[in-house]
């Protein structure tokens, strides 16, 4: 809306600047912490400005694992695991949702409503409330410590299906009619008309789902018992979990910075798609 006839007041700028600074301060300390050696942090004498050990810390985190005390995979490997999981979940969710929404909107068949409701109900069954039985299913299927086990149980999505259904309902009947008269079958219509028309929605949804996938915690915590399969978010918490006095806080903070870099970069650089993907499905 914008306040009419008012020039820049100082109050909004003050409030927002304070907000920005307060919100950034944990990151600032993480950045500082990742540039000092473990000893100066452990003694509680960490300066409030950057130190000289940044390169060494990040290099050790990426290649050497967590201070070599525990048998964790190097953070480089953990980040690859996170990347595969995030992309797998995003692509998987979009693929199966686009197909099922297409079926529900463009076909008439027995049990159509039932199928739609079955998908809809998954909204009410977040993984957190069915942890143990779902874990048992995955373990019976031999999917523990596999990328399939990390991704497939999370890709059913009512929200993505509902979103694509909304998008498809806006495609005018005339267009479908014209395509049918021109002899296009349903799959040709899907590839050449429906998918290109949904491009922007797919891009926006991908950004949201990438972040969702990258930030998963409870599920990978259960599914990865092999430390080579751990994601970076799990890896960092396990580093903290080791004995308190000997914790290599410099490496942990370097890992924290690395762990948030990809999703934060996606949000900041793909801001347009991010905001669209976040706010629009709810309108």
């Amino acid at each position, binding site marked *: 809306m914008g306040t009419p006839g008012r020039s820049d007041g100082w109050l909004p700028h003050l409030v927002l600047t304070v907000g920005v600074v307060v919100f950034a301060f944990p990151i600032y300390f993480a950045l500082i912490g990742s540039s000092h050696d473990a000893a100066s942090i452990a003694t*509680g004498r960490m300066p409030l400005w950057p130190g000289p050990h940044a390169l060494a810390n990040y290099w050790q985190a990426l290649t050497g694992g967590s201070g070599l005390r525990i048998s964790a995979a190097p953070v480089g490997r953990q980040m690859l695991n996170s990347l595969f999981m995030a992309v797998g979940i995003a692509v998987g969710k979009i693929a199966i949702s686009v197909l099922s929404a297409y079926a529900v909107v463009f076909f008439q068949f027995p049990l159509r409503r039932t199928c739609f409701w079955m998908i809809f109900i998954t909204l009410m069954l977040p993984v957190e409330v069915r942890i143990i039985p*779902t874990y048992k299913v995955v373990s019976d299927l031999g999917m523990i410590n596999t990328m399939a086990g990390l991704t497939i149980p999370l890709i059913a999505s009512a929200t993505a299906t509902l979103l694509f259904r909304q998008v498809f309902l806006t495609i005018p009947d005339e267009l479908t009619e014209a395509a049918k008269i021109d002899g296009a079958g349903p799959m040709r219509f899907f590839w050449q008309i429906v998918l290109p028309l949904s491009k922007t929605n797919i891009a926006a949804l991908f950004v949201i789902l990438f972040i969702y996938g990258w930030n998963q915690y409870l599920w990978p915590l259960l599914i990865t018992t092999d430390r080579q399969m751990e994601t970076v978010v799990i890896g960092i918490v396990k580093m903290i979990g080791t004995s308190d006095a000997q914790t290599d806080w410099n490496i942990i903070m370097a890992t*924290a910075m690395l762990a948030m870099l990809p999703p934060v970069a996606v949000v900041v650089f793909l801001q347009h798609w991010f905001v669209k993907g976040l706010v629009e499905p709810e309108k």
Partner: protein
Amino acid sequence: MRRRVIFPNKVLPYVLLAPQLAVTLVFFFWPAAQALYQSVLIQDPFGLRTQFVWFENFQAILTDPLYLGSARVTLLFSGAVTLLAMSLGLLFAAMADAGIRHTRLYRTLLMWPYAVAPAVAASLWLFVFHPSIGVLGRRLNALGIPWDYKLNGAQALLLVILASAWKQVSYNFLFFLAGLQAVPRAIVEAASIDAGPARRFWSIVFPLLSPTTFFLLVVNLVYAFFETFGVIHALTGGGPVKATETLIYKVYSDGVINLDLGSSSAQSVVLMAIVIGLTAVQFRFVERKVHY
């Protein structure tokens, strides 16, 4: 809503639906049914014998002081996170929408915490508030304020609330900002003739935002209930003495750590009822598009 023009294929729609339905059946419906089934059974610790016990598990958890304590922690935690995250989100959105320059820059600088994983957010806050090495935790102790979230339950709860709300403000900010930008200019202009900015906001703009506010209320409660597991697991592990053990955390610790399947399943079923309730409320509202 139904389309008039459809394709006549009889088999193809089922093929298209198959992947989604397969995942849904195997990983959603079957486990949910298992949780329901397990919740009316008691299994001995070695898994050798199971007994059907009707609602004994539910009766047990609903009369268990530990469970009720966890429910109280959850209410306090969720209420505080929701209130804090929503009021800060609204404040920043109102300021960013006050007709100032650089709105987009502020938006960029305020929205990125959304992308930080809850467990990573926890590690950042841990580093700041650690009683012996944290920049602020150490200062507090040096100033004579005893600060140790590992011993003091209230401080632990405060810390998980702050870390959880920190992450959620950006979400609320973006939705409130979108909501504010959709308020018709003419209404605000008309109101500005005889009302100051504060009054104009609370009596004209805020009521117009009620659909957004209500939607965010549900989303924030769901977030505080279910998605903060990572924050709590990484920061406090539910402690000290269960001071930060929310219902979700208790399902995890009873089921995964203590392997008490009956009780954990009964707790899962209670949580399912809560999600179904929240989702139903949300969709009722979305269907009707309630306005002031």
